[in-house]
């Protein structure tokens, strides 16, 4: 712990090192949220930028503050928004569960292969993640289309007589969501499973536990942290997903990311977009805090070893 003591002695230098990324994040990540909150209390206006200012200097030199609660009132009273938030949470939850069900056996299989082949498999799983997200979503447009590859194939082998409706509905939305977010689940799961001691399973089987019992009493509890990390990595961004519902979702797909986008770009209603974002942040603050607390605990545990 020598170096720790040294850093303590070098207070000014230490402060300077910390302040560079700290200041950047405060200015470009934290402060903007307060500006979003502020503008969510403004009204749409035909001006540049298109919203009213909250503070006006009146003639007598009085500073007049106007808080417009109309946007939040609208979100709370119009059940379109409630439905959209709910359906976004549902979609994200379903995506997370499917990623977990599909990703767990894959991560487990990779973790149990011998190290030489493990690396190749891991690379194969990660390679799609490195190629463009947008292009991978686009790829499904060609597969799911009414005369796309899947329908042509099924028609050709005679399983179906007319094309299935696979595209622009909830099926295509869920499928592509799972596809796009799967690597985010596999990686944290893998990094926890690979650390597990295989002798534990041998011991369990020596003591007469079947593979299923061994899985539920040993493997699953030991990978709990990986499950939590992976689930949060999928769930939180999935709630606000915009590209996938826009490109492959149905016309009546309700996703809050799409609503925010439309308020901003199509209706030019910036205060409404800000209000939608504020409510979304409030919904996501609990899972984000959970992920953060969990990660800190992880790291502190690691640092003490």
């Amino acid at each position, binding site marked *: 712990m020598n170096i720790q003591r040294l850093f303590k002695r070098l207070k000014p230098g230490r402060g300077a090192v910390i302040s560079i990324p700290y200041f950047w994040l405060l200015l470009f990540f934290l402060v903007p949220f307060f500006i979003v909150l502020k503008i969510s209390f403004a009204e749409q206006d035909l001006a540049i930028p298109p919203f009213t200012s909250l503070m006006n200097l009146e003639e007598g030199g009085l500073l007049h503050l106007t808080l417009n609660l109309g946007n939040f009132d609208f979100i709370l009273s119009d059940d379109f928004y409630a439905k959209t938030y709910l359906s976004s949470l549902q979609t994200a939850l379903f995506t997370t569960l499917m990623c977990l069900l599909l990703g767990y056996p894959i991560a487990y299989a990779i973790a149990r292969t011998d190290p030489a082949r493990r690396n190749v498999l891991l690379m194969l799983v990660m390679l799609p993640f490195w190629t463009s997200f947008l292009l991978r979503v686009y790829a499904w447009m060609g597969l799911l289309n009414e005369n796309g590859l899947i329908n042509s194939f099924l028609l050709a082998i005679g399983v179906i007589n007319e094309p299935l409706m696979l595209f622009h509905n909830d099926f295509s939305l869920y499928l592509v969501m799972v596809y796009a977010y799967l690597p985010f689940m596999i990686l944290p799961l893998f990094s926890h499973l690979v650390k597990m001691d295989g002798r534990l399973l041998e011991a369990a089987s020596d003591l007469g536990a079947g593979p299923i019992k061994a899985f539920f009493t040993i493997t699953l509890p030991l990978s709990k942290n990986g499950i939590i990390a992976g689930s949060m990595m999928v769930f939180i961004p999935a709630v606000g997903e915009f590209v996938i519902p826009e490109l492959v979702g149905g016309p009546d797909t309700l996703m809050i990311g799409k609503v925010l986008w439309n308020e901003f770009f199509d209706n030019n209603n910036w205060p409404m977009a800000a209000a939608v*974002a504020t409510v979304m942040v409030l919904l996501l603050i609990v899972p984000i805090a959970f992920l953060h607390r969990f990660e800190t605990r992880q790291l502190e545990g690691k640092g003490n070893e």
Partner: protein
Amino acid sequence: MNNQQLSPFLKGMLLLGLLFLYIPIVSLIVYSFNDSKLVTVWGGFSTKWYASLFQNEQIISAVELSVQIALASATAAVTLGTIAGFVLARFKRFPGSSLFAGMMTAPMVMPEVITGLSMLLLFISMQQLIGVPAERGFFTIWVGHTTLCMAYVAVVVRSRLLEIDQSLEDAAMDLGARPLKIFFVITLPLVAQAIASGFLLSVTLSLDDLVMTAFLSGPGSTTLPQVIFSKVRLGLNPEINALASITVLVVGVLVIVANYLMLNSQRKRERAMAAAMRESSAG
């Protein structure tokens, strides 16, 4: 975990998972060589979409802009992210450390419609207050991408720093090296690999970002994902298939080469460590 034969169920799931991941990508590539304009109807082999792609000036200039932004933001993200990762791994507790760690985690998971909108509103407010930035474009996109990517770099660097032994740094200090010298001579080379993968990751994240860029770009700055998005919104487009195939090829080669190099140097390091251990125990 030790090596055991995988059960048929696990083998099947692994195969299924890989098929699920790769079928869309392979179909993209196959149909990029399709002569027909209808992307999913096979009309014979042709490379004409590649030729027309290279003549599409809108795409070419978007690629140029995207590459410039990606290199600039990856450079900044690596600088800031390495410092942040170092602070998180070595300083541990300091006033505001919990907020700092939180601000590093959040950008990675926060939906981009929120970060994009909030950052745009920051720039608008800054412009009203101090007149800077004068317009949206390269600079605003660069700030957005840097903030997003530095979080990833910090995570990679931090976990590498927690893995390596601090005794090397302690020894250097006992021998009288100054902190800055320790950082540049001992710490930095040890995390060089993590920094390199952080840089690569930042480049790909920046090249791929659509949502944040849409909020932060101005009329004169259209990046590649924005061009792709506006095209595929209208339906399938064979030129985009050609573009996708080139992307997959470039990324595939890069990742495989990088992976090979890293494995090689890891093995070399392990061998050197083992040799050093043998020597010290013999002496």
